[in-house]
């Protein structure tokens, strides 16, 4: 494409069907403790 460079093509919706296993870290356990950020957590679902 001439006008657009896409950085991310993976569709978040596709992750919903196999998601929700809950094996990942609770966000507040990592480093924040006062300000919630979920998008920086690692996925630990091997079957995704």
């Amino acid at each position: 494409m001439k006008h657009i460079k896409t950085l991310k093509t993976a569709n978040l919706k596709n992750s919903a069907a196999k998601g929700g296993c809950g094996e990942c870290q609770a966000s507040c356990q990592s480093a924040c403790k006062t300000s919630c950020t979920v998008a920086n957590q690692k996925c630990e679902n091997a079957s995704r």
Partner: protein
Amino acid sequence: MIHKYKQRDLNIVLDVCSGAVHVVDDVAYDLLDVTEPKSPNCPDGVIDALKDRYSKEEIRTAYEELHELYKEGQLFCEDDYMAFTGKLQEAPIKALCLHVAHDCNLRCQYCFASTGDFGGGRKLMDFETGKKAIDFVIARSGNRRNLEVDFFGGEPLMNFDVVKQIVEYARGLEKQYNKNFRFTVTTNGMLLDDDIMDYINKEMSNVVLSIDGRKDVNDSLRRTLDGSSCYDHIVPKFKELVARRGGKDYYVRGTFTKKNLDFASDVLHLNDLGFNEISVEPAVLEDKYTFALTEEDLPVIFKEYEKLADELVERQKQGKGFNFFHFMIDLEQGPCAIKRLRGCGCGNEYVAITPDGDIYPCHQFVGNEQWKMGSVHTGEFNNDMKQTFAKATVVHKKDCQNCWARFYCSGGCNANSANFEGDILKSHKLSCEMEKKRVECAIYIKAKLA
């Protein structure tokens, strides 16, 4: 829904519901102000709106590319996440914030825990209570294998013998119940010695080391009991612990207030000290504190985040990059949509347990009786309150439903909502604005380094 913004030389477009991220030129960026490119041909009215700035050919080709993204579900993707709300509830409990010490050997002026005792008197958890907490999470964890226990306080090293006993007890149950305990500790470092460092580095999957940054900034609010410098005491210990950690996870973690709105300098100072895993975040305080952040500070804070993003890009390009917790983002393999919908999980997947064995939705609620969920001693547990927290998601929070950042922050901190807005389903505006800026900067960094 899309969100578009300019940062430095980049035009960035996020497609909220697909999570797609695009860097576009000026004509494509401006096109999105006047049209949603859902039809294959560029409408005449769109060309008319932009023909003074761009040639018709440029407008048409940019439109066609945008339409292509729309067809591929990467632009103006429909929001049909309501279909997944059934997955948001009935989650087992998998994480504990274990308050092994409601006491502290520092007197930090911004402490949300009333300088360590959470307003309930200075207490240490006994082993019996710790055992019951471990039994509680195993019993409530269903089929979750990975269980997390963060030793928290106050200052948990003030009760380190009990920490060790609890770790040993939990490890002894892993095989029997098919669980994998991940222990973490959040410490101010004052009591670190060789033995404790070795133990932490062996048993704790992550360690959070509290320090605010530059010496004057740190010592101004993180005060010792005798008035000596906290910074001078902890920096050598933190360096030593990290050097001996063998690459395992850690964070140096600080807090910024109105007293150091130039907090990027504190982050960079921590990096200059040799730390590469850094989190410095805003203190959330009531207005009665003179150093509480307020909405009028936002323009300065935004500029500071931008400055930090630029410097992080620069250091990365020089091969000296570091991680800033709130700028970390994995665009391809980040958390699934369900986790993003579910949010932080407090009161639902994650609870805090006090030295007395009382259960609260998270560490930020501790000490506020109205939020007490139960006790590991009596076995009481308020499942209705758990359900209330299970429903505190971006799907259920009115302010989040139309926010472009909802799949990044996942609804924000419920404790901030309760404490400042009086309702866990409302949003704390100051926190939201800072979080949105951090997400913009995180994506900008990815774009600059792509």
